[in-house]
């Protein structure tokens, strides 16, 4: 690990000033410390933000949910308001990492997670995210766990967060504050596909800090849930995952929000699936027809062709689980 200076920010203002001067924010540290030890990350100055007052979780006036960026994963998952209003959020969090890591990691940091691609983590391997222009080792390498959607010739790594899949399905907003004031952007635009600049992973400007993630109000009653498919039962990243939220009234689906994880370079919204559901009556056939559209545009690599069918089946199963009780 390379040496670095360490300071604790005592206010958001102080943090932003330090961030603008090149300081790197550290919250839970569960990704950053690990990557620093691997020398993938080499910050020269760490700015500890974990003491800032950004950990409130609260219902918004019209029935949405605002989660402070520094709330710990474990605390958000256990929050009664979260569990009651958006069970998918609690489910995604509890299916992530381990109890120890969830005690440390924050919500803002969870969304900011860097790829779990083995080549990204191996500083002896070419990787365009780590060293732009050096090449992508996964394209010709072992790519069983990699993405089939949103890839480019420069990078095929998946976004590792479970929570971000739910936030993408529910069209959450990322609230930031920076040297030029406050700003908000939809999570679908905040997380960036690799394209020609795989090293740019988020729409964050120098010194900007995530202060909260906000889920907009959705019509009630709302059923939501998160399903994660992986190589082992617990403590593992997703091969595929699906977040579903449905508002069913009078036997008809009025609102459908669906996104998938483990398959995209960012959490993958599934508008074709959503559109097929809205205005129709729940039935086993409907779930199957909608799920047929889940992998539209997929471009499998040598070792991850199975994800195309697995994604369709994961979507179908989760639609049945969430919507099948009408």
């Amino acid at each position, binding site marked *: 690990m390379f040496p670095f200076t360490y300071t604790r920010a005592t206010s958001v203002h102080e943090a932003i000033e330090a961030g603008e001067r090149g300081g790197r924010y*550290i919250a839970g540290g569960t990704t950053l410390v690990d990557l620093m030890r691997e020398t993938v990350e080499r910050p020269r100055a760490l700015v500890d933000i974990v003491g800032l007052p950004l950990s409130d979780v609260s219902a918004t006036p019209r029935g949405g949910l605002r989660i402070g960026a520094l709330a710990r994963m474990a605390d958000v998952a256990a929050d009664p308001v979260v569990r009651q209003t958006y069970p998918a959020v609690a489910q995604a969090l509890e299916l992530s990492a381990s109890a120890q890591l969830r005690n440390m990691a924050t919500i803002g940091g969870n969304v900011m997670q860097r790829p779990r691609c083995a080549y990204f983590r191996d500083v002896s391997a070419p990787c365009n995210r780590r060293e732009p222009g050096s090449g992508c080792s996964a394209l010709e390498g072992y790519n069983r766990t990699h993405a089939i959607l949103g890839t480019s010739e420069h990078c095929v790594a998946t976004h590792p967060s479970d929570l971000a899949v739910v936030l993408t399905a529910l069209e959450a907003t990322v609230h930031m504050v920076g040297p030029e004031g406050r700003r908000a952007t939809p999570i679908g635009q905040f997380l960036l596909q690799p394209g020609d600049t795989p090293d740019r992973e988020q729409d964050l400007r120098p010194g900007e800090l995530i202060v909260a993630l906000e889920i907009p109000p959705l019509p009630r009653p709302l059923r939501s849930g998160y399903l994660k498919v992986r190589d082992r039962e617990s403590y593992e990243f997703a091969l595929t995952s699906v977040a579903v939220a449905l508002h069913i009234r009078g036997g008809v689906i009025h609102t459908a929000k669906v996104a998938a994880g483990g398959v995209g370079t960012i959490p993958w919204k599934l508008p074709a699936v959503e559109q097929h559901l809205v205005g129709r009556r729940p039935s086993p056939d409907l779930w199957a027809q909608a799920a047929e559209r889940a992998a539209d545009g997929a471009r499998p690599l040598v070792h991850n062709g199975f994800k195309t069918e697995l994604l369709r089946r994961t979507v179908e199963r989760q639609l049945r689980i969430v919507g099948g009780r009408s």
Partner: protein
Amino acid sequence: MSTDVQEPELQPEEGRPSPLSRRTFIAATGTATGVAVAAGVTGSGTRPVSATEDVASELADGTTSQVSFLLNGRRQSLVVDNRASLLDLLRERLDLTGTKKGCDAGACGACTVHVDGRRVNACLTFAARLDGAQVTTIEGLAPDGDLHPLQRAFIEQDALQCGFCTPGQIMSGVACIREGHTESPEEIREWMSGNICRCGCYVKIVRAVDHVATGGR
């Protein structure tokens, strides 16, 4: 364990031999208590500093921090290299070797300790961040000469073979019981999944946690 003798954060970068041994470094920093740690991230603090540079320049560059925290109920005040993990601090400087280093990457749970009452991975915790914290390790779980009920349960249930993961399992298990995630063997397995056992003693580990959770002792 021979692997424990190394202190990764003081390893020089590949191909750059360091003139500074770990012991020299610790001796030097140990006498530096009270030296003000540069607070800013400006000026020389942002300069890339190689681990091969001498101690004086590292101190001046603010790459060490003064921390004071409660460890197993006793106050510890010391200067630490900012790169030092709580795990390495415990094992290499404070002689508390009950906390084990398995993966050093947050993947195995062998280093589980309690910080402010919550189970965390000591390998992913910079010691410099612990100012004001309360840390409990396996050594501080029960009064001297006594065992925690879960330690006794591990013995009675024979919930270990090599024992390397056991301190982490027990620290995690104590927290799991306190959190109330022990309604069924399945729930215990899920909430203990951050602790890997290479010997495969999971059935007996779950039994030990369940035994204590249900008031078996």
